[in-house]
């Protein structure tokens, strides 16, 4: 159901929300004293990978695949071209933790402690209100999945990937690691070796789901890793909106999140992937997200990178068929002491393809926001078009912003444009708003929200409000907003 967008109303609502909100960061950063029923313990070797495969009773091809991925992981060096990753403790990270034996489609059967956690995060409330289906993952395993019957009847499949591998092994095998092979990068190889959980969503030909589907990822344990693998397949002429949310408690020792998201947008299909990431500041967030977009397909990435200690995230669209298009909107917030190395990639591999990338970043205190992107138009991508825009807002004197786009054009009939700006809240703008009766804080928050407006209006209302609250939380500490 689409709601008509009114910028003024939205702004008013958000400002009210900011004033009234008494939400605290601790609302997400609590942790449960839950003893996992199974954990492989710290460290990673061939035996542990075989153990994970054994526990999950996987087919032989998956066991071999994991071991091959482990070899690739061990052979690749830690990337040094981006942020410092020396804080990742490879030896002492727990690569697999199972919270409970239960995975269910009945909310009442979810263990109480886990249920409480998701209730605090508002997950069941969201499902009741506006989701077509949802999956909840706690540490390494999915604990709950549900899909409204109307979509189930139309052949839509939505469940955690482990279950999908058991139930539809051939279908999973067709798509698993096709877009993101383990050879792609060290973190993709790690995921290939120890992946657990994640979602599998298959939308059959011609089915248009008008409500979003959501997966919520919660990492509870200290110094654990979460390595979910998500596959979204939008078959010919279908349409789907898939949402992910992520949180974790804050610990002294660092945790690692290294996910893979593969999205297959077939001919004439439309997929929208929205993710709001609010990992705590002890998490290294290193996901690899990629979409294959076929003829006339449309892919939309909408992302909010708000939490984590270090994030390296570059959602990619491979435009493989004529007239395929990709639209990428991303907001990242580099809070104090954090690094957001984010961006996007669009590879134009077919004629008449188009892409648009909009990246907005905000740096607070000594936060460092980096845009890093690749735009490539191969020879033969005739009359393709692309535009990249990245804007950065610096809040404090010591805030930093870096922009590193890479643009490679091999096709003369293609058109490409890129622009980037970096600046801080202007005194002129502040003075104007204050002369209209707003306090300095209100004026600052209005400018920040206005800066993010392009992205906010693409996000479902509930998520936009959540994102605003999160942004407010970060800025609140500085007395900048609220």
């Amino acid at each position: 159901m689409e709601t008509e967008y009114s910028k003024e109303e939205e702004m008013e609502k958000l400002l009210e929300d900011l004033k009234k909100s008494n939400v605290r960061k601790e609302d997400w950063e609590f942790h449960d004293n839950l003893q996992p029923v199974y954990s492989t313990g710290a460290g990673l070797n061939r035996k542990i990978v075989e153990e994970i495969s054994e526990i999950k009773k996987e087919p032989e091809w998956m066991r071999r695949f994991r071991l091959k991925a482990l070899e690739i992981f061990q052979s690749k060096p830690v990337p040094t071209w981006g942020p410092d990753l020396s804080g990742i403790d490879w030896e002492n990270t727990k690569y697999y933790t199972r919270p409970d034996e239960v995975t269910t489609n009945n909310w009442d059967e979810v263990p109480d402690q886990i249920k409480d956690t998701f209730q605090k995060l508002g997950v069941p409330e969201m499902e009741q209100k506006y989701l077509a289906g949802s999956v909840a993952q706690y540490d390494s395993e999915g604990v709950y999945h549900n899909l409204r019957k109307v979509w189930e009847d139309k052949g839509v499949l939505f469940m955690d990937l482990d279950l999908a591998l058991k139930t539809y092994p051939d279908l999973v095998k067709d798509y698993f690691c096709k877009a993101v092979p383990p050879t792609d990068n060290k973190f993709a190889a790690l995921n290939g070796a120890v992946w657990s959980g994640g979602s599998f969503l298959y939308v059959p030909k011609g089915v248009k789901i008008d409500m979003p589907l959501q997966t919520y990822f919660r990492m509870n344990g200290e110094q654990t890793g979460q390595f979910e693998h998500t596959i979204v397949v939008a078959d010919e002429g279908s349409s789907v909106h898939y949402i992910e949310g992520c949180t974790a408690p804050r610990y002294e020792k660092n945790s690692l999140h290294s996910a893979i998201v593969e999205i297959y947008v077939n001919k004439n299909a439309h997929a929208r992937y929205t993710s709001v990431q609010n990992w705590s500041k002890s998490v290294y967030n290193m996901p690899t997200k990629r979409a294959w977009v076929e003829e006339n397909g449309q892919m939309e990435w909408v992302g909010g990178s708000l939490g984590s200690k270090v994030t390296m995230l570059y959602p990619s669209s491979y435009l493989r068929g004529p007239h395929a298009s990709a639209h990428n909107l991303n907001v990242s917030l580099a809070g104090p002491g954090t690094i957001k190395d984010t961006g996007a990639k669009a590879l134009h591999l077919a004629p008449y393809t188009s892409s648009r990338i909009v990246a907005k970043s905000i740096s607070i205190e000594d936060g460092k926001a980096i845009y890093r992107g690749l735009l490539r138009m191969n020879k033969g991508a005739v009359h393709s078009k692309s535009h990249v825009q990245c804007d950065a807002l610096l809040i404090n004197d010591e805030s930093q912003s870096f922009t590193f786009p890479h643009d490679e054009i091999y096709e003369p009939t293609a058109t490409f444009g890129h622009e980037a700006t970096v600046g801080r809240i202007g005194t002129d703008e502040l003075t104007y708003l204050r002369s209209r009766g707003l306090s300095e804080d209100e004026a600052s928050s209005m400018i920040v929200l206005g800066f993010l407006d392009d992205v906010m209006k693409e996000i479902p209302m509930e998520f936009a409000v959540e994102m605003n609250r999160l942004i407010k939380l970060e800025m609140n500490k500085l007395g900048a907003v609220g």
Partner: protein
Amino acid sequence: MENYPELLRSRLNDPAYEYRRDSFLEFLKAPVRTYKESPTVKDYVEVADSELERMIYAEPVNGSFDPQPDDTAQIVMSNDVLTRSSIPEKSGMVITDMATAIREHRALVEEYVYTNLGRDRTEHVVNAAWRNGLFIYIPDRTDISLRVHQISDSRESYSKKSVIICGKDSSVKITDIHTSQGNGNGIHGQNIYCHVGENSTMQYSYLQDKESTATDLTYIREFMDKYARFRLFHVNHGSSRVIFTDESVQMGESSDFRVYGVNFSSGTQKMDIRDSSFQVGTASSSDIQVRGVVTGKSSTIHRGNIDLEEVARNSTGFYDSRILLLSKDGYANSKPGLMIKNANTRSKHASSISDVDEDQVFYLRSRGIGEAQAKRMITAGFVESLIERGGDPEMISKVNEYAEGLGVDAFLGTD
């Protein structure tokens, strides 16, 4: 290359020995530049260490070299030898070659030459191995225009280091034309360091149009004091491989740096053009605008960083790259960067790569102009508009000549 320290030792009597040695150590420490972000491209213009070695040892070639300098040039360098210097006498002004300057102007050399080792690997090696170069000193409160013609032998490989120093409250215009003669695959490296004193203005017009077999590695570095203004007009047209790097070092407050660059690549030429600003002084500004025209099987990459340091409060930086990719076999890349370490600044970059605008072609064709000619006119307007912003008249006419001279096969369509 490993024998170079031996060569250095043989030059123990060279007054610049320590500077050369330090530069060579920097070269050994510096990482080899790669373009690792791209899955397919190693680097845009690859110059192997064995080729740098040819440049370092600068072995003479057989056969005579008969340079034909431009009659209007007041200063002429044939390879690395200063052969003409007909400048009206001005008090305190020095125009000589580096070898002479090292002997006769030690204080200036100590202050301006030995203090800068450069930042890039190839730049270090030029600083270690330069054979000679141009040395110009313009004292305080002096206005002057200079025309320089530097002719290289395309068969020979060697490196040069030139230093131009401009005192306080002066105004200097220099037009520096680089050409070559002969048919050979020589590697020519040169570092041109310009020092602009407090409240001075320097306009430096650089044109490189060497034979299509040579390789040109040029590093221009501008050191700017407070209230200094620098205008760089650069045009790259010749050589088979071009690495052109220009970077400001704006230590002074309120310094103003502007670059207008035009690059034509054709045939199988490869060009790597880097224009950057490094701003430390408060209220400093930079505005870099670069245009490229790619035809044939050539390739061009424009790179540029705006680097605003923590103390560069109230500074601004702008980088704009536009490339016309006219040929189906050529390719163009851009890699602009912003490195902003201070919130009290404004900065922006923009880049675009495309063919000639079809609407503009359609308009001209409706006026009876053939397709290739229409594209030629649009291309000429595209590049000239930049150089006409105060560039040297000879340079403007050269750019016009290059644009008008683009053959029919340079364009996708024909008349």
